[in-house]
């Protein structure tokens, strides 16, 4: 089977000369548009990086939901979510033993 190709965007933004991505809004909206365009040209996956406290994509789920609403077949992913920052829906007493 043909290898699956996904794009991975860090979603950097920076208001400097030559940058097409000047604000956080640009980064989010263009990532959605790139997922739509990637699906049209036959790419198999649209993946986003997650960084906190930096001019890059951070909170992935609103973005993934929007990408999902605008596309039909392309895989939507993260590479990767930093689990130090996530509330996984925790109930402390059921936390499994560390392995």
């Amino acid at each position, binding site marked *: 089977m*043909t*290898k*699956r*190709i996904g*794009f*991975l*965007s860090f*979603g*950097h933004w*920076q208001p400097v000369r*030559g940058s097409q*991505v000047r604000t956080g809004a640009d*980064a989010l909206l263009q*990532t959605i*548009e*790139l997922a739509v*365009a*990637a699906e*049209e*040209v*036959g*790419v*198999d*996956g649209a*993946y986003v990086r*997650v*960084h*906190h*406290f*930096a001019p890059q994509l951070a909170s992935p*789920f609103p973005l*993934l*939901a929007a*990408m*999902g*609403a605008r*596309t*039909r*077949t*392309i*895989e*939507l*992913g993260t*590479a*990767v*979510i*930093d*689990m*130090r*920052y*996530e*509330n*996984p*829906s*925790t*109930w402390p007493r*059921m936390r*499994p033993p*560390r*392995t």
Partner: protein
Amino acid sequence: MAEDAAAADLISGGRLQLGISRGSPETALRGSESFGYVPEEGATDADMARDHAAVFRAAIAGAGVAQANPQMTAANGLLAIQPQSPGLSDRIWWGAGTRATAVWTAEQGMNLMSSTLLTEDTGVPFDELQAEQITMFRDAWAKAGWEREPRVSVSRSILPLIDDETRRYFGLRAQADAHDQVGHLDGGLARFGRSFIGSPDQIVAELSKDAAVRDADTVLVTVPNQLGVDFNARILESIAKDIAPALG
């Protein structure tokens, strides 16, 4: 996070492939503590990330995580998060930066995501070290007895030179970035993979020799997103149509 992931997965018709891990070195010092997550006494932030991952995976798999309130519901015992998205549990990947972590990932039953750097160096080329990591992952997966086939992805920087604009932006880098780099990250040795820059035919020839690309089912291509949607769509079209089919 478990509710958010399930909701986004349902909205997309089950297309989420979620890579999770400890995360990378970052701009903030102990940044997660400002979100309320502080490692327990004697535990590292990597331990905490693994704890969070275990609870997240249990929650999306339907484990009860909250005690039912008998005044509000007829249910007894523990309540699971809602909504649940069937199948999402099989689409969780762990980003592993070493061979040992890849083995752990297989033992846990998660797919493997490996990037363009490994936080160890044995002197062998990056693609061979990463291929060894994938082999160890697959061996550990088989030994653990999981029934499904795991997914494996590697990331690569791939920039086909297809017109004046791509040549103007990346032509000069083609030579400079054509080799692995070894450096220090978080106080240890790390090996960084090379970039693949050239005509689509040249890239096919070089990627065909990449041992880890050969062993992965998915290649994630890092994109220079600040050059805009149209530019990146052209690069991706060339990769999807001129390069990927030739990789087999």
